[in-house]
């Protein structure tokens, strides 16, 4: 192995290092060592390339600025000399030393340690195996509500095959029931069009029934279908879909209604609150013809074939069987939406209790107000009686530590939308909205709220305590908190703005997809600021209200965002994975399977082999190289490229080269390469501006930093060996537990460090010699505070006796 060391003075800003001494120190080592005043200048880069081309090293040590900047500054140059970025190991002489430590002797000695550590690592050989991933150019969109339709259309227009799956026998999801949307007050069955304004006629929007979106050559629609099983990883997922029979061939049915006319069976129409009847053969959503007629087969009398006889196009097959389809796709968009929180759980409003039939949810009220609904759009009581007044109760089940902690985002506005609709149709109906706060936060929402007030809708600030009845009328009891008055409102209908909760089956689907569900029960997005539609599983995106409550515009935006990210993947055809992957040594593995459960990404699978029966296999596509398997494996059978235990130990050997002779206790900080390492850089950047002064950003010269991919990689063995090699104290520095870049790595290391501290105590070692700290880039003082505290403690405790 030939290692070339490049030293850089960063334009002279690191003059407090003794460069001559560093050069002569490194010149002893096999390979070569060169110095340049500023390597990232054009001239410096040429010097770098010429030297590499002439000397042909196998790997490089870059002693200068932080590897975070050196890595990107030299990315192209490294490529030009045909090396991989993993063949260049950084030695952070700037942020970790030159900008922090004014004492030349101390700084130079620390620089030697850091250089030697990086030299050892480079000398070990650090190349990372590349993995090519073929991406199947097809997507599965689960859920055909507004978000699913949007995502499917976007992906289809971008040229990808889309399989759109919904468990209902109709499309539109919850929106199919809503009649109209706010604040646009347009139809809920109106959908976005992908037409381009001025180029074709279909710009802006279209009705479901004429959108013919399911006829798009790239879209395959599966209604009445459910996901059975999912296998595979990014680029190559195999999905089994159970297609339940509707008994009508969608491609043949022309929606003429002759079958329903002929059908002798009549039952209450659940879609319309059971207030009207429908046939056993029926169209599930009256106004949408995108989906076709379906038969409620269990309602058919034996031997009846009236519908079959009536159908002019032979579209009906009463013997249709359930089938299972296997679909291959490169990725997913989850758009499974939400359901209304069970109103019966908020007992004081008596939903569902006999005598309280006119206590309804907003979705049910939407049916009552829908022209295609059971009352043809005029507000009536369940028994058909006219209505003089209605009370709308907001926040039912939302914003509550008792029910659901979150604000459901849309309930205030749905209530207002319905209030407006009622008033516009009949100004004589008395409408009262009871609220805690009106959250009119979206675009045009406040105007919409004003409109309701203009129309005479009453707003009462007070969450009702009870709804009672005398058998005919409902009585809503509340405090009018703006008047400090108790009020009882006599009313015909009470409409509850129910909280939004995750759609049933979300958890089961999450298990199949190997993604997480958050505390709220909705699908967990990778991060809360960006990547809001990505999940922890590569290629699996989440859109609409499947990820969190939202209004329609937000749902659609999420869908577009998810589709465009999936498009980026699908259009690539193949992608190359260039970062570290876990490798299992089958000879050492004892088949305990602990790694399988330790991996947060489901990347390790137990696969059958002839001898000894099974083996552990890492799927390099799903593995992110965090090393949580490494620290869990009791047999030390797993290593991660670039950060294997052997590599880390060789680097440590250099980093602690002077441990024996140095009179000061030495502290090793094992920092994750993400926020934590950045925080150590940040302290250097901040200290530089007040160089030589002791500021909150500076830290003791005895603190030496070594990067790992994630603190989840740090095993008890590694801690023990680090002490054995000469560390007198160890800081494990990671991201905040809930913001770990590898799901649960930082949490795992926090737990591990706590346990190890107890073990240290048992073996007579002061547990203050080991600490875990979490940080962001911008909160580097969290690092310097523990570092300085530990340095102070160790100066009292002295060096660790070995």
């Amino acid at each position, binding site marked *: 192995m030939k290692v070339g060391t490049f030293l850089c003075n960063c334009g002279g800003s690191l003059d407090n290092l003794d460069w001559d001494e560093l050069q002569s120190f490194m010149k002893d080592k096999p390979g070569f060592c060169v110095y340049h005043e500023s390597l990232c200048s054009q001239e410096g880069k040429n010097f770098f390339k010429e030297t590499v081309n002439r000397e042909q090293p196998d790997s490089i040590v870059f002693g200068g600025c932080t590897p975070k900047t050196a890595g990107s500054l030299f990315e192209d140059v490294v490529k030009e000399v045909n090396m991989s970025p993993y063949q260049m190991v950084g030695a952070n002489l700037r942020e970790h030393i030159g900008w922090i430590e004014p004492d030349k002797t101390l700084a130079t000695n620390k620089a030697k340690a850091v250089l030697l550590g990086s030299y050892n690592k480079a000398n070990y050989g650090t190349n990372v195996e590349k993995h090519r991933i073929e991406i199947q150019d097809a997507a599965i969109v689960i859920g055909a509500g507004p978000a699913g339709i949007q995502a499917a259309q976007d992906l289809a227009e971008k040229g990808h095959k889309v399989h759109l799956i919904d468990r209902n026998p109709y499309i539109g999801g919850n929106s199919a029931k809503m009649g109209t949307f706010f604040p646009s007050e347009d139809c809920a069955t109106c959908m976005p069009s992908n037409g381009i304004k001025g180029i074709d006629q279909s710009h802006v929007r279209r009705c479901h029934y004429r959108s013919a979106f399911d006829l798009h050559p790239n879209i395959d629609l599966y209604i009445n279908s459910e996901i059975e099983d999912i296998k595979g990883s990014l680029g190559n997922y195999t999905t089994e879909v159970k297609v339940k029979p509707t008994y009508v061939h969608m491609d043949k049915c022309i929606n003429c209604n002759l079958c329903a006319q002929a059908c002798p069976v009549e039952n209450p129409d659940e879609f319309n609150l059971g207030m009207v009847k429908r046939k056993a053969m029926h169209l599930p959503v009256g106004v949408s013809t995108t989906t076709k007629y379906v038969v409620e087969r269990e309602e058919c009398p034996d031997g009846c074939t009236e519908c079959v006889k009536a159908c002019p196009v032979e579209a009906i097959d009463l013997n249709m069987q359930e089938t299972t389809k296997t679909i291959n796709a490169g990725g997913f968009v989850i758009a499974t939406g939400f359901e209304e929180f069970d109103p019966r759980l908020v007992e004081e409003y008596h939903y569902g209790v006999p005598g309280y039939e006119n206590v309804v949810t907003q979705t049910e009220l939407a049916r009552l107000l829908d022209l295609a609904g059971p009352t043809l759009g005029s507000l009536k009581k369940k028994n058909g009686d006219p209505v003089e007044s209605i009370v709308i109760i907001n*926040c039912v089940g939302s914003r509550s530590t008792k029910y659901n902690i979150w604000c459901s985002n849309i309930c205030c506005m749905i209530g207002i939308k319905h209030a407006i609709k009622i008033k516009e149709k009949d100004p004589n109906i008395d409408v009262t909205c009871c609220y*805690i706060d009106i959250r009119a936060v979206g675009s045009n929402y406040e105007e919409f709220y004003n409109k309701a007030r203009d129309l005479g809708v009453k707003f009462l600030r*007070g*969450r009702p*305590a*009870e709804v009672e009845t005398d058998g005919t009328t409902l009585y809503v009891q509340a405090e009018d*908190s703006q008047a*400090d008055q*108790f009020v009882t409102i006599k009313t015909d209908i009470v409409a509850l703005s129910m909280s939004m909760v995750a759609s049933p089956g979300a958890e089961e689907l999450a298990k199949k997809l190997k993604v997480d569900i958050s505390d709220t029960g909705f699908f967990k997005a990778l991060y809360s600021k960006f990547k809001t539609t990505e999940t922890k599983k590569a290629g699996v995106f989440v859109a609409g209200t499947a990820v969190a409550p939202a209004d329609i515009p937000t749902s659609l935006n999420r869908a577009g965002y998810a589709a465009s990210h999936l498009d980026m993947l699908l259009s690539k055809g193949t992608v190359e994975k260039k970062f570290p992957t876990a490798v299992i040594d089958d000879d050492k593995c004892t088949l305990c399977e602990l790694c399988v459960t330790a991996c947060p990404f489901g990347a390790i699978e137990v696969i059958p082999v002839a001898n000894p029966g099974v083996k552990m296999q890492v799927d390099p596509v799903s593995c992110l190289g965090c090393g949580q398997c490494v620290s869990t494996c009791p047999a030390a059978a797993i290593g991660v490229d670039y950060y294997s235990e052997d590599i880390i130990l060789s680097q440590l050997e250099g980093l602690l080269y002077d441990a024996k002779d140095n009179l000061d206790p030495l502290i090793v900080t094992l920092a994750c390469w993400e926020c934590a390492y950045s925080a150590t850089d940040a302290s250097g950047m901040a200290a530089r501006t007040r160089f030589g002064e002791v500021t909150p950003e500076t830290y003791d010269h005895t603190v030496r930093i070594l990067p790992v991919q994630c603190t989840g990689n740090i095993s008890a063995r590694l801690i023990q060996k680090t002490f054995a090699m000469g560390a007198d104290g160890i800081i494990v520095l990671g991201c905040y537990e809930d913001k770990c870049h590898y799901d649960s790595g930082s949490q795992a290391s926090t737990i591990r460090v706590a346990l190890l501290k107890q073990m240290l105590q048992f073996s007579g070692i002061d547990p203050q010699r080991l600490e875990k700290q979490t940080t962001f880039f911008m909160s580097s003082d969290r690092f310097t505070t523990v570092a300085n505290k530990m340095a102070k403690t160790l100066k009292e405790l002295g060096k660790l006796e070995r």
Partner: protein
Amino acid sequence: MIESTELIGEFKGLYDKVKLCYQCGTCAGGCPVFKQYSRFNPRRIMEKLLAGEFTKEVFEEQQIWYCTGCYTCSTRCPQGIDIGHIINEMKNMAVKVKNAPEGIIAEMTAILETGVTAGISQSAMKRRVKLELPELPPPDLSEIQKLMEVTGVVAKLNSLKEHAN
């Protein structure tokens, strides 16, 4: 609230929950006292606590004593705040610092001396006869007094009285 947490540390745990109150008025809307008498408003009591007016309530305004302890508010509060319990604790603390309204002292004294807070009225008696209800037996005063003695009510009452003088 700072003053009161300093005043009585044990109240702290309850106060932590009060912080969740967003003044929705559910408690008031269900309170049987508020329905009849709008000056007693459990939501306003919570508001006072949020505003740090614990002592003002306990020592000056003394509305808490109107609460019947029915706990309807506690079962209804969407934030899970145990309002009834909090009011009860406030009453206990008021007694601890020997501060209760005269009316309460008078009621306690009446129970101790006669077994009831208020004797049954003549008209009520007549109505009972009309409804053919049996005659009410007189309260067992010695039992009541024993009960009040062993539960420490008598001692509390004496200290309240002493303080009032």
